[in-house]
């Protein structure tokens, strides 16, 4: 224990104590996480893509000429034939429109992260609140929220997104919002409610009520913190879902974005190179492999977090 024997009196020391406690619990979880191996593999892949995303603006400002390497409007004047195979100046070749594939890949990584994390954050904030509120109040509130959840689960996600993008012109932010609402009020909310149901019957909830705590106090001080490990897990799974949906939509050309991995495959397809994978591999593999790797890396991290928060899955 990092607590001195004299009772802490200054508020600063109180915060210091809380920080020390948080650090200790983080350390414990981290050592468990490290023991799962698949989590470390996932984390390594995520870090690799984070580095790619961070390196892009640096490269653009230093070594890469904007006219040639811009992911959207650049043109590889140094190549005679487009799409050009990988070379020293274009490590992953160029696409049918003469744009550098590596630059596109790196540029898109950042928006994939933003999309995934934003969708996950929205999903989990909505899902946790819906779950806690439905479980705590029960009755009519519960019925309304759960029937709403049924509707959300019933809606076929991708088809709804296609219709919506046709209607309102979906960009990354809207996409994250739609995914977050569909999943937060839907499946994620239901799962978190089932967890919240096992929390609301604990005597400490009654003790909080006997102390005079209102619904807001009980939901956000007692129920939500006990849901957080599970919400965090679902956050990881939502990232995977969001990146995948984005890829599907931009492959179909339904997403109003400048550049993304799905759009890279879409460009390949519309130029007629999709079925010549053997010959023009650099047009398909970098983007599709990235989608697969990043999706599975978040899934792996999620699985490993599942082991951390769920003692029954832990190997001794």
């Amino acid at each position, binding site marked *: *224990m990092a*607590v*001195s*024997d*004299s*009772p*802490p*009196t200054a*508020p600063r020391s*109180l915060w210091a*104590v*809380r920080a020390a*406690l948080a650090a200790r619990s983080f350390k414990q979880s981290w050592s468990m996480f490290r023991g799962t191996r698949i989590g470390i593999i996932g984390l390594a892949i995520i870090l690799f893509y984070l580095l790619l995303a961070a390196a892009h603006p640096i490269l653009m400002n230093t070594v890469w000429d904007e006219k040639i390497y811009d992911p959207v409007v650049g043109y590889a004047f140094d190549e005679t034939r487009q799409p050009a195979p990988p070379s020293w100046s274009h490590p992953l070749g160029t696409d049918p429109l003469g744009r550098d594939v590596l630059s596109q890949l790196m540029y898109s990584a950042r928006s994939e992260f933003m999309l995934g994390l934003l969708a996950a954050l929205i999903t989990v904030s909505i899902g946790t609140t819906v779950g806690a509120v439905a479980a705590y109040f029960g009755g009519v509130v519960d019925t309304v929220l759960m029937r709403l959840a049924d509707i959300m689960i019933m809606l076929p996600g991708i088809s709804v997104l296609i219709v919506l993008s046709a209607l309102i012109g979906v960009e990354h932010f809207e996409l994250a919002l739609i995914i977050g609402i569909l999943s937060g009020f839907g499946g994620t909310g239901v799962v978190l409610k089932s967890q919240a149901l096992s929390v609301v019957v*604990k*005597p*400490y909830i*009654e*003790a*909080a*009520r*006997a*102390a*005079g*705590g*209102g619904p807001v*106090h009980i939901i956000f*001080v*007692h129920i939500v*913190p*006990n849901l957080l490990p599970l919400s965090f897990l679902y956050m990881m799974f939502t990232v995977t879902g969001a990146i995948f949906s984005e890829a599907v939509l931009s492959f179909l050309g339904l997403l109003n974005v400048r550049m993304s991995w799905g759009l890279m495959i879409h460009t390949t397809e519309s130029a007629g190179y999709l079925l010549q994978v053997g010959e023009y591999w650099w047009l398909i593999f970098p983007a599709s492999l990235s989608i697969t790797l990043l999706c599975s890396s978040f899934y792996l991290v999620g699985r490993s977090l599942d082991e951390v928060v769920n003692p029954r899955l832990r190997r001794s």
Partner: protein
Amino acid sequence: MTLDIAKLVPSLDSRILLKVEGLRKYYRATANRFRRNRGLIHAVDGIDFEVAKDESLGLVGESGCGKTTTGKLLVRLIDPTAGRILLNPGQQQPTDIATLKGKPLKAFRRKVQIIFQDPYESMNPRRTIFDTVAEPLKVQKMGGTLEHLDRVSHMLELVGLTPPSTFLFRYPHELSGGQRQRVAIARALIVEPAFVVADEPTSMLDVSIRTGVMRLMEELAARLGIGYLYITHDLAVARYVCDRIAVMYLGKIVEVGETEELLQRPKHPYTQALLSAVPVPDPTFTRPPVRIKGGVSVPVDPPDQCRFYSRCPLADDFCRDNPHPPLEDKGAGQLAACYKA
């Protein structure tokens, strides 16, 4: 039929802390869309009792007789179907707890607290001991964080968790059962309540530390002038802690009296049967044959007769044809609800 003790013993009047009159709680049995009105479970069925300042009243009875429901009604964790709960009835304007709402209810929660049975489940595992004990202060907005720290430290010392600084920022899982129950007591007493409902606070503890916790509660009651309602199924615990004992059966109080008097000379046949079931540490002891028959029934729409009628060895036609007997003085301030005793 309500019996007014205050009339019998006028000197008690100003000392009475809590007065319960005709308290009832009915639950609907299996209510759903397709089967309406399957009857009412009379969990607590019109009980009257009083608790004096720094007195502890024991509420004993078997599982399912309504002890815990009574306790939760008194702290308004559940709302009563009918009846009055008066705090400080001797005062000019006693508060009727039974109908409080909103702000007055929140203010009332400072005066009455509850200690739960299970020290392992009654604390949020993600909150430190300081957070747990300071919670009532925080939700009642009593002072700032620094003041909370002082008061919590002081209270931990009072319940015997010394030095407090080694306990303040620990999590419940780092403490033993006895220590946790002391934390639960600290949480209940931090707002300086006048009345505490203790719902079997020692039943989940090892026998070796029970006395310690019981003695602590007695000591604090004397020191802080707290009245207890001590809910238990263990007559030995009740005898150790309580000044008076009330025996409950199927939602009714069947006998009330001074602890020793009641245990030595039980008047009601149910109390007699309950006492005859107490284990005796003597291998040569042969138990007199149990005179009551059957088991505890469920009080769904009970017939208007003595609740104990079907099991009572003394019951006759008079008991069958008349309503549940009122609590009557059977000598020395001992009340029993029985026509035959």
